[in-house]
């Protein structure tokens, strides 16, 4: 599928989704993050908690994705990345991401997100500068991709809330989980 048809598929799928007010979403997330910061003394614990939370969400969202995206199965990890960026992000967050920064092996890529609906109107106080505010997205991706047999690790490497000019999620394929594992991905 071409880039343009992925984008179109994203718009069509977005049209099918029941939607809620974006502020409500962002504010609920913010209220929750605030509580987590109060409950945990270490910011890293909060980052980890957000990621695990995202995982719980991602494994559930994927069913709806498969049902409503209207797409045939992807031809591989590279196409999966495009579909995540142009269709999945659009369907669930209303925004699209750009895929970039592939490594030569085709196992690591970046998602660039210009608009982050979770972080609308958020400012991070200095004491929270190690907080990966939107870390839940990393978990969502990890959970969703795991359900389609890709075990990945996702890191928020650049964050507008921390002063970077763009949001960047780095996705690294660790293992393709299927019966016939190719040599490259076999665990030893």
């Amino acid at each position, binding site marked *: 599928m071409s880039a343009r048809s992925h984008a179109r598929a994203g718009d069509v799928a977005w049209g099918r989704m029941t939607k*809620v007010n974006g*502020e409500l979403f962002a504010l*609920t*997330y913010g*209220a929750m993050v605030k509580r987590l910061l109060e409950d945990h003394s270490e910011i890293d614990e909060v980052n980890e908690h957000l990621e695990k939370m995202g995982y719980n*969400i991602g494994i*559930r969202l994927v069913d709806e994705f498969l049902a409503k995206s209207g797409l045939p199965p992807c031809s591989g990890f590279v196409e999966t990345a495009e579909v995540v960026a142009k269709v999945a992000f659009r369907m*669930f967050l*209303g925004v699209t991401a750009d895929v970039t920064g592939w490594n030569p092996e085709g196992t690591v890529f970046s998602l660039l997100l210009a608009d982050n609906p979770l972080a*609308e109107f958020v400012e991070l106080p200095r004491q929270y500068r190690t907080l990966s505010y939107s870390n839940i997205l990393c978990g969502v991706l990890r959970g969703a991709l795991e359900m389609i047999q890709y075990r990945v690790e996702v890191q928020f490497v650049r964050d507008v809330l921390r002063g970077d000019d763009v949001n960047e999620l780095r996705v690294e394929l660790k293992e393709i989980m299927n019966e016939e594992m190719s040599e490259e991905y076999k665990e030893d």
Partner: protein
Amino acid sequence: MSGAPEIESSVAESFFELLMFEAFRVAKDSVSSEDPEARAQLVKGRIEAMGFDVGYRKIERSASVKLLGRHPLELIKFVCKDLWLSLFQKQADRLQTNHRGMFVLNDGNFHWLKRLGKRRDPSALELSEHILDFACGILRGALTNLGIQSAVYAEIKEIPSCTFTVKVK
């Protein structure tokens, strides 16, 4: 009255709902009381407080709020119509008042309870309580930012129909 329409961003409802349920889990996780009743009260308070934050800040960014007067009835009507519509996809069905500081908002088909469908098992009922505690917090937060101090509680008549009672302090 004129003004640019507020451009509203949106996200998928399913994502929001899953997020809301994770928020409830956060509220439950750090409560360490052994006694189930005390636990339930603490969890309720935490969920309501999260809702309060949401409601308070939601009003902050509502442009149409600036056009309102100060009378509690007018402000609560605003909540029933504009805020309800923005949050719950429809306006509240009915507003009653005794004109002595008590208001009852009725929603026969409360949007957030609809997803429970016909489920009435204990965890569905628990979830419905969390949902309403969160909604009460949102209302109380919104009203506080509109200048009204209140206590807000909800009662389920029969899922998905419920009432929210606002007692102005």
